[in-house]
């Protein structure tokens, strides 16, 4: 009697069939998982950038707000902030990026942290133009050098707020030799004592740090210079001193912006955004043709009011006087302000002229405040 080996063959065949089918199914699902992982990472970086955009909008529109964003999910990623030709760009390095030609954002070139601190301040010249948004992280340390009273203001303004986990890492130094870098991702020296100059040796504490992680800003009177470590010495980044265009006073947004901006290019590029917005605001206040001395806008509304109410105008002759009659008046000053903005947008070296016209506008507005309708 011959034993049939059909069963043995069938079992073996079953196992081979199972192995092949199993491998195909596993490969199929593994492929899906890998593709989903890649898509998910892309989705994460897009989501982060979208959320950042939304938070930047909220923080940026409301002045003097402090915020913090939890970025612990993307600690392994580097966030980059750049600005070129008036267009800012931020996002995840080698990932999703967002362009922004409107809101000035002052931040280091790169950030890698589990938490970002955001702070917005209004920029006034002399009326509010736009909110500046400053972004930094806990692992970016700011060393303040010198005895300027701005240092005290800066330390007070950037004091930690544990409720919202807002924290800017700062330290006031007497000399650069007192510097202790610790475990920070990058450091920025804010120098009010002119200790840092082109070619001078960097402090020994930072000698082992990467060049692009060690930067400095040096304030001299109303100008600022940017420096970066190059080997063992400081290298100046900007050719000419960069003027701080502001009317001064407390919480000078332009000054704070200089501290938080990654370099001179980021600073000047974002300032150009503010100046362009100033040009548009001048048109709202003074009309589209204010640069030629032709009044429109809110100023024309005010003038029309006084012209249609001669009784009020005669009781308060200073009102129309400060607006259009006196030698130094609102119409001519606003026209000058608009012309200077136009020049500034063409050639940044002309922007410093804005300071005088802004100061004049401020003074005229204060004169109007007594008994008249103010411009702002």
């Amino acid at each position, binding site marked *: 009697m011959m034993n049939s080996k*059909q069963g043995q063959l*069938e079992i073996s065949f*079953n196992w081979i*069939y199972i192995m092949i*089918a199993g491998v195909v199914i596993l490969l199929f699902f593994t492929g899906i998982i890998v593709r989903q992982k890649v898509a998910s990472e892309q989705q994460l970086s897009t989501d982060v950038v*979208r959320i950042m955009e*939304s938070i930047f*909008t*909220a923080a940026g*529109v*409301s*002045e*003097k707000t402090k915020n913090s964003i939890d970025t612990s999910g993307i600690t392994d990623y580097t966030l980059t902030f750049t600005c070129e030709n008036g267009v800012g760009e931020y996002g995840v390095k080698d990932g999703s990026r967002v362009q*922004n*030609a*409107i809101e000035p954002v002052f931040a280091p070139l790169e950030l890698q942290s589990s938490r970002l601190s955001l702070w917005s301040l209004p920029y*006034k010249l*002399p*009326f*509010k*133009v*736009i*909110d500046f948004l400053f972004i930094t992280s806990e692992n970016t340390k700011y060393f303040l050098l010198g005895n300027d009273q701005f240092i005290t203001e800066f330390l007070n303004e950037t004091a930690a707020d544990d409720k919202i986990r807002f924290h800017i890492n700062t330290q006031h130094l007497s000399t650069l030799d007192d510097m202790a870098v610790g475990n920070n991702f990058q450091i920025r020296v804010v120098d009010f004592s002119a200790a840092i100059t082109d070619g001078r040796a960097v402090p020994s504490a930072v000698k082992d740090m990467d060049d692009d992680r060690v930067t400095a800003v040096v304030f001299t009177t109303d100008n600022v210079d940017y420096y970066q470590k190059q080997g063992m010495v400081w290298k100046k980044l900007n050719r000419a001193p960069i003027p701080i265009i502001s009317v001064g*006073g407390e919480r000078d947004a332009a000054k704070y912006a200089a501290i938080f901006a990654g370099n001179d290019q980021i600073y000047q590029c974002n300032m150009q955004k503010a100046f*362009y*917005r100033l040009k*548009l*605001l001048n*048109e*709202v*206040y003074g*009309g*589209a043709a204010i640069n030629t001395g032709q009044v*429109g*806008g*809110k100023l*024309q*509304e*005010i003038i029309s*009011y006084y012209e249609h109410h001669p009784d009020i105008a005669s009781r308060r002759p200073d009102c129309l006087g400060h607006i259009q009659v006196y030698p130094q008046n609102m119409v001519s000053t606003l026209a000058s302000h608009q012309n200077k903005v136009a020049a500034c947008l063409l050639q940044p070296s002309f922007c410093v002229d804005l300071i005088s016209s802004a100061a004049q506008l*401020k003074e005229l*507005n*204060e004169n109007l*405040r007594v008994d008249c*309708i*103010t411009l*702002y």
Partner: protein
Amino acid sequence: MVTKISRKGQVQLSETIAVLFIFFVLIVFGIIFYYKYQQVAIKQQSEELLAARAMDTTLRILFLPELFCSQGDAEPEDNCIDVLKLRQVNETIQKHLEDYYFDLFSYSTVTVAQLYPVPRTFVVYDKLKLEYTKRESTYFVVSVRDDTLGSYGYGYVKVEVYS
């Protein structure tokens, strides 16, 4: 002698094929289900994005330097629109719509309606999207300050965003 042929193998093979057939049918169901679910999820996400954009636009309008009620060097008044600027702002915004304000407000229509004392409506920004598929409207109550009268009116901001 009659040899009995067992059909057990055939039955088992048919069974295996049937099971595999059902298995692949279930996988196809799963894929269709996932596709439908993704469609709905994408639609919901797009609605959420539109709602977020409406909120962003409303926030921008409320804090727009071209509109808010300033108080000299002090902080501007909350939820207040200066009617002297409001009358003029449309000209500036329309002139610079494509090169500037579109980046701020995208496809949307922003109107400020004063209800009291004198009902009137001002169009601040208007960029309609032709053949839009969805429209979301937001309303926000504001004061409307008139410095020439020294008074505050009552009104609202209406923001319509399109996608």
